[in-house]
């Protein structure tokens, strides 16, 4: 290696180092974890909760770990560039936290076999690439039980984002929970066709309440629908994080994403060399899905909700236990059987009894 090449290499290393410092990294430690977020950490939902998980690593591992994050990274070519940069700057554990990062993560993982990658909500794995997601539908079943008990008009309003399996699974699970305690409940579903537009999400909630809904459920990311529920004097559920501050009189509970323990466990695994590639789909039992404190409901409903959540956590009960029929009346899950994960991950049909058409 001649002198000028050494010089150039050193300059490049220095430049990359400067970039890394610009992103808020500290000195290299045993574990150096990088995070890629799809939204701003101030979205008070999805990316916000991932960032709380990142902070948990720093709090738990202390000096043995340092972390870096890059927020609002578009899914696509930009993501590959960001992930590559993290891998080149000495990060040995990289979390990519949106479905759309799947292909870029896989590509970069191939080029950096010594770096461990963790991709949220995807399905492509490699020796140095794990996947993880949470079974939010378990929380939605518990919410359904509460809604079935609490509704007076027997109409539940549901603000959906996009008709993808994750959301459809949530609606099905919620309604099975509601019908388990109150067979007369009906659901009205409005698709906002956005994950994030507070004004539009709020308008959708207003439309549903105007049509008689007295429980508001949402699968969009802003607190607006819950806030509308608060202002209109009806009840509702928080999404992704505890939104009690926005709706002290309306929030019954919230289905909280809790990545903390998973992130800490994975960082520790890297630190002691036990990290292995695997697929994790954690539910209430692993703490990944957490129910915010039960509020604004009588004690018996609270007790029922706690009991339901405990049964799901212990594995005694699975929300998708047959018989389950789809809207056409076809038997999808036989009596006594449990829907397998493949069916859950690809769910594109409503269960029997939901009076709405699934947009295709």
């Amino acid at each position, binding site marked *: 290696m001649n002198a000028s090449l050494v010089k150039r290499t050193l300059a490049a290393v220095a430049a990359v180092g400067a970039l890394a410092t610009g992103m808020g990294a500290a000195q290299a430690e045993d574990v150096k974890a990088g995070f890629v977020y799809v939204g*701003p950490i*101030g*979205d*008070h939902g999805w990316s*916000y909760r991932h960032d709380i998980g990142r902070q948990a690593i720093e709090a738990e591992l202390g000096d043995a770990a340092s972390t870096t994050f890059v927020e609002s990274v578009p899914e696509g070519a930009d993501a590959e560039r960001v992930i590559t940069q993290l891998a080149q700057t000495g990060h040995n554990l990289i979390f990519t936290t949106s479905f759309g990062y799947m292909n870029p993560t896989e590509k970069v993982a191939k080029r950096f076999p010594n770096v461990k990658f963790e991709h949220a909500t995807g399905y492509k794995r490699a020796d140095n690439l794990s996947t993880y997601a949470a079974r939010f539908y378990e929380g939605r079943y518990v919410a359904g039980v509460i809604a079935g008990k609490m509704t007076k008009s027997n109409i539940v*309003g549901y603000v959906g984002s996009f008709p993808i399996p994750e959301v459809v699974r949530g609606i099905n699970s919620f309604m099975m929970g509601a019908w388990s305690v109150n067979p007369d409940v009906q659901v*009205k*579903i*409005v*698709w*906002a*066709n*956005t994950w*994030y*537009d*507070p*004004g*539009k999400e*709020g*308008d*959708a909630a*207003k*439309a*549903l*309440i*105007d*049509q008689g*809904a007295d429980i508001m459920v949402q699968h969009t990311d*802003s*607190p*607006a629908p819950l*806030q*509308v529920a608060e*202002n209109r004097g009806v009840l509702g559920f928080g999404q992704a994080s505890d939104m009690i*501050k*926005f709706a002290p009189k309306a929030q019954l509970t919230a289905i909280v994403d809790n990545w903390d323990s998973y992130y800490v466990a994975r960082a520790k695994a890297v630190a002691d060399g036990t990290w292995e590639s695997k697929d994790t789909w954690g539910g209430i039992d692993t703490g990944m899905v957490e129910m915010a404190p039960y509020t604004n409901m009588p004690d018996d409903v609270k007790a029922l909700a706690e009991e339901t959540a405990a049964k799901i956590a212990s594995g005694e009960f699975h929300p998708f236990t047959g018989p389950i029929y789809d809207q056409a009346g076809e038997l999808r899950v036989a009596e006594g059987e449990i829907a397998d994960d493949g069916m859950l991950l690809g769910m594109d049909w409503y269960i029997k009894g939901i*009076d*709405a*058409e699934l*947009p*295709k």
Partner: protein
Amino acid sequence: MEWIVPFTLTVITASTPLLLAASGELITEKSGVLNLGVEGMMLVGAITGFAVTASSGSAVLGILAAVVAGTLMSLIFAFLTLTLMANQVATGLALTIFGVGFSALVGSGFVGFAIDPLPALSIPGISAIPIIGPILFGQDFLVYLSIAAVIGIWWFLVKSRAGLILKAVGDSHHSAHAIGYSVIKIRYLATMFGGAMAGLGGAYLSLSYTPMWAENMTAGRGWIALALVVFATWRPGRLVAGAYMFGLISVMQLHAQGAGIHVPSQFMSMLPYLATVIVLVIISSDRAKIRLNAPACIGQAFRAAQ
């Protein structure tokens, strides 16, 4: 028919931010300045209004601060395009991008704060009249202000001498300059008015529509306001019609979904935009009419010499 009242109330709240921002932009454009930074000015207005209200507890202070913030944003634009004669389209786009980032930076400390929404007007007896009462006499004051602003703008453009001067500056800046009007000063004022109204539109979003701060909460409403000005062919009356039509269709599609009307929801979400495009096509088929109202010098830089 009991759904009429809540339905109308929702339409009004969905239309008001658009109307506020668009009426300011209408005056800006009438003076010959095209400011594409409405979205950015609204966002900065939204976070300023929210931050000041949350810290001081006074919504009035918050609204005033939002107006000032929107005006300051438009002053950046005015200085760059009118004094330094930068390209208006590029500067406007830059202003929007700046506003998105700047509001997110300032707002990072205000995520998750909750405030009380603006109080609605309540006149004992009158506000309780069925249907008319809550619709006409039960709004918060920004709604009334948006209507008053449009009436004021109409009067200003059609009846006042100052309005004539503004239109002269927008239609032929050289002629206006030749007979002694300060084109740059008038354009500065018109641009600042546009910024103030955009700030107010933003404050309506963060203080009344959804009383909270969330990054990028305008979600494209600034662009819709810009489209509405063209849609209205720069006429205040049509601006009200356009803003309310937009609000009506976007709320109607949500109601139709809830009522189980089986139309693809993606199509419904597209409807308000489709309607805007269709009306634009219809209007632009009559070129004479557009030329009658469109400011002839829009987007052009003015140099005082010659």
